[in-house]
């Protein structure tokens, strides 16, 4: 009986018709359609000047990018400008992590330290880093120090918040388990607190890095002679929208590359966490 029924099943199932509706269920086709559709709409808007004079065609942006890549702008090619921005980001990022993670960790593990730091931190936390630009320029002048200062301000906050929360949210029962195995206070910290909160701390570091990359542009919009923010300002001052959009594209691509490489790094240091996320 059962065998006959199983054998019957293929007759019921219709062969896959290769119709247009099936094409629209193909993920890769939809990816391509999304990109091509967006570029087409953009191109139509640019050609019909629906948004005014200052929308270049996609192809003009591409030419502008190639031009900046080959010919120096304000004495530096595109890659050099990118390097200047990246260098600021990296320096500030390292400083922010070196300050933020220890503060967050200490706030998490010591209630007196938490009581001492939290009120001031809560006051500063909601201030947008861009609000510090004017003050930074008054304090340090228009130079590298003021830019790095602003980026540190922006990047340090997620480091502190995530390290703090990561440590506070460690599953209590893991401490029970460690204590039942004979762990003392110091061992609890090393064997449970740090590894258990590591994914949250690492997530904070990731957010810090993207915050730093966002803030560097704001910092460079004011008084920079090089960097991606400078390119965007330059495009505005010389009425070259293609230069602005080109800059934006490079910024987005860089941010994407950074986040991809960081998630590879995470998979490498923290294999159990990435697998957990994939399973969910």
């Amino acid at each position: 009986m059962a065998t006959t029924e199983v054998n019957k099943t293929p007759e019921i199932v219709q062969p896959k018709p290769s119709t247009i509706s099936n094409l629209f269920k193909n993920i890769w086709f939809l990816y391509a359609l999304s990109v091509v559709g967006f570029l087409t709409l953009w191109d139509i808007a640019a050609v019909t000047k629906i948004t005014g004079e200052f929308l270049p065609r996609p192809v003009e942006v591409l030419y502008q990018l190639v031009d900046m890549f080959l010919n120096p702008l304000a004495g530096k090619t595109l890659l050099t400008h990118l390097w200047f921005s990246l260098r600021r980001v990296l320096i500030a990022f390292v400083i922010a992590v070196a300050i933020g993670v220890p503060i967050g960790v200490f706030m998490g593990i010591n209630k007196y330290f938490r009581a001492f730091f939290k009120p001031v931190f809560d006051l500063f936390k909601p201030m947008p880093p861009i609000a510090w630009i004017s003050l930074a320029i008054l304090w340090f002048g228009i130079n590298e120090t003021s830019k790095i200062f602003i980026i540190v301000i922006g990047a340090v906050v997620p480091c502190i918040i995530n390290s703090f929360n990561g440590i506070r949210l460690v599953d209590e029962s893991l401490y029970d388990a460690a204590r039942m195995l004979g762990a003392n206070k110091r061992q609890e910290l090393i064997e449970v607190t740090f590894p258990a909160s590591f994914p949250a701390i690492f997530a904070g570091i990731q957010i810090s890095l993207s915050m730093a990359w966002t803030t560097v542009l704001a910092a460079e919009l004011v008084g920079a002679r090089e960097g991606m923010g400078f390119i965007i300002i330059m495009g505005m001052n010389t009425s070259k929208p293609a230069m602005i959009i080109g800059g934006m594209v490079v910024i987005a691509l860089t941010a994407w590359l950074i986040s991809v490489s960081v998630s590879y790094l995470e998979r490498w240091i923290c294999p159990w966490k990435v697998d957990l996320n994939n399973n969910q």
Partner: protein
Amino acid sequence: MESRLEQQPVNYKISCTGLSKSFGNNNNKVDVLATMDLHVKENEFLVILGPGQSGKSTLFRIMAGMETPSTGTVTIDGKKVTGPGPEIGFVFQRYTLFPWKTVLGNVEMGPKLRGLAKNERREVAQHYIDLVGLKGFENHYPHQLSGGMKQRVSIARAYANNPKIMLLDEPFGQLDAQTRILMEQETIRIWEAEKRTVCFVTNNIEEAVYLGDRIVTLDGKLPGKLSHVYEVDLPRPRDFTDLEFLKLRQKITDESQLVL
């Protein structure tokens, strides 16, 4: 000679005397455990059987030193329990493995905390991984294992610390029925391979009869108090369909009517 032996008091491995526990303050007090005495002999397999909300987990956490009793004391080998420690192997209902550690890393945690050298603790851990039947899974992470395998790791981890007593808190409560039976058989096999004083909490009567040398039941209502004690002298391995097994199971069922 013989009379002298008889005069000696029985040396219990675990003694709970005058134990009780209440939570909350004076205005809002919940009595979780009524005053109770409980004694466990060396190498005995004691099952504490009770429905949900009968205070059995609280009793266990007190025995393990994770909670302090409101009154009374727990002693192991005559020594008072003052806090959690490696002399007690605890198996949690929710596995509670360290997710960032492999099977090997989890099992060797106890020896590592005691400061054993790497090759020594590897040896100990490997022995218990083999004992619980997880050979070949040493480098797997907990999330890659099934529920039954996780609980095997948890048992191996507790055993690897060479504890005087083992406390298992509803360890198979989250497993499906078939895996559960397998794990019950494995528990007896492991216990017979390396005898320890074992206390096992469960809400499953069949599981209690299958495992225990002795079963104590708790009333199904707070505050929890001991209600019946059953000596189980059925030979092992026990058969779930054996007449004597079923009779005892029925007796316990009849005598532990839930009071709602």
